[in-house]
């Protein structure tokens, strides 16, 4: 009996030794200060000098965006047609009212202008974009106090604006406008339906988002541009976020975001594409007892 226990203990010791450090660091692991963690800072280039006037008004100072938010985009991407980027606002900073996202070297550099309603709270936002050629991906954020911040990363990805459509074009067009909303419970079991609770959601919209730079297989004729150029997401009557632009947003757009629940019964999504097609859906929320 005693011998059996010692044998068991011998086996257990290395197990405990290897697992304990993970627990000691917590589930998130080590977090470096942001200035040390940036592996791919933006590269200074002449393109931005030229773009700046289109995006930032004359005389406006651009403040260091790293102080306002943690901005993330990969060093390089497996798929240049779906390069993810994310913005996580730092706690205690002023409310972000609007962001403009740019891929400097894309033929249409402005990915989109996103307006954020007050119910977005501290912005936690993620989406995916196309890259035509290696480029800076930058975000210009305007706060409620009227200050403008900028952050960005250099991403090595190319060919994404002319990348082949991932599925049969007829199927893509037939399913265009289908939407899905998914809630992700990160609260650890709190009641999600109460007002004031921060919820995490992901909105997915089926749309081929043709840039006009892609071609039909076989004939190699260009596919006409057609993409969602305007999007509005509301909870009840209150705006969560809107998007204007869309050229560089990836096929089948996906937006992950957090918001402050106001207890409304529906989340409304309205998308308009460049052909004037309107896609609308109301998702029931806060209706579970």
């Amino acid at each position, binding site marked *: 009996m005693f011998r059996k226990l010692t044998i068991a203990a011998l086996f257990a010791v290395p197990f405990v030794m290897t697992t304990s450090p993970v627990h000691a660091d917590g589930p998130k692991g080590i977090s470096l200060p942001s200035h040390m963690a940036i592996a791919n800072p933006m590269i200074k*280039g*002449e*393109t931005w*000098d*030229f*773009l700046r006037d*289109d995006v930032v008004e004359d005389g406006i100072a651009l403040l260091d965006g790293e102080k306002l938010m943690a901005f993330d985009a990969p060093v390089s991407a497996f798929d240049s047609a779906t390069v993810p980027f994310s913005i996580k606002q730092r706690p205690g900073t002023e409310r972000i009212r609007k962001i403009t996202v740019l891929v*400097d*070297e*894309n*033929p*249409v*550099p*402005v990915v989109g202008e996103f307006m954020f309603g007050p119910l977005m709270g501290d912005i936690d936002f993620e989406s995916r974009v196309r890259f*035509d*050629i290696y480029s800076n991906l930058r975000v210009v954020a305007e706060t409620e106090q009227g200050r403008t911040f900028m952050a960005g990363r250099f991403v090595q990805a190319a060919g994404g604006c002319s990348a082949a459509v991932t599925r049969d074009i007829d199927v893509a067009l037939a399913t265009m406008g289908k939407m899905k909303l998914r809630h992700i419970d990160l609260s650890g079991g709190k009641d999600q339906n109460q007002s004031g609770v921060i919820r995490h959601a992901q909105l997915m919209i089926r749309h081929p988002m043709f*840039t*006009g*730079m892609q071609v039909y297989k076989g004939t190699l004729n*260009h596919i*006409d*541009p057609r993409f969602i*150029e305007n999007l509005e997401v509301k909870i009840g009557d209150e705006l969560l976020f809107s998007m*204007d*632009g*869309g*050229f560089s947003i990836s096929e089948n757009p996906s937006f992950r975001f957090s918001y402050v629940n106001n207890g409304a019964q529906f989340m409304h999504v309205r998308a308009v594409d*460049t052909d004037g097609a309107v896609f609308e859906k109301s998702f029931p929320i806060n209706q579970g007892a």
Partner: protein
Amino acid sequence: MRDVRVVLLICLFGFVLPAIASDRPDGYRTHEYDAPVPDEAPGAITVSDETTYALWRTGRVVIIDVMPDIKKPKGLPKNAKWKGRTRISIPGALWWPDVGFGELSSALETKFKADLDRVTGNNKKAPLLFLCRMSCWMSWNASKRAASYGYETVFWYPSGSTGWEFWDYPTQRLKRDNKP
């Protein structure tokens, strides 16, 4: 055994060499523009990085960059501001993105001739210099084409912007100069 190999090699070269050569004097390169280029373009003077720099410094040579751009898709909404591709090249160079292709539409060819007339002031002796980037046939095509129009002083800069940037010579973002 060795003799056979030599004979085989001669046979191979006998076929291959004329095939390459035929790409040169008659006609233009119409495909695979990103490929090694010959040392000379017919009717043009090949120039090195240093010579190009010296020519640029004189300020008297019309420098034409023929690096292609992306075609703007038809039917883009107005608020989708089209920038096209960024071209960083020799300061003061003109950017004519389409004239280095193997075949030009007659409209484009007419325009190319008119543009050359404009920038040289109808002077066939005016010095012209063509470039794109390293191992790019577009500048070879354009040089040869300009020479065929009767321009007597055509410089061809085969290392192009790649060579220019390598030596850290000054650069500038170019604007398209030959909008259709």
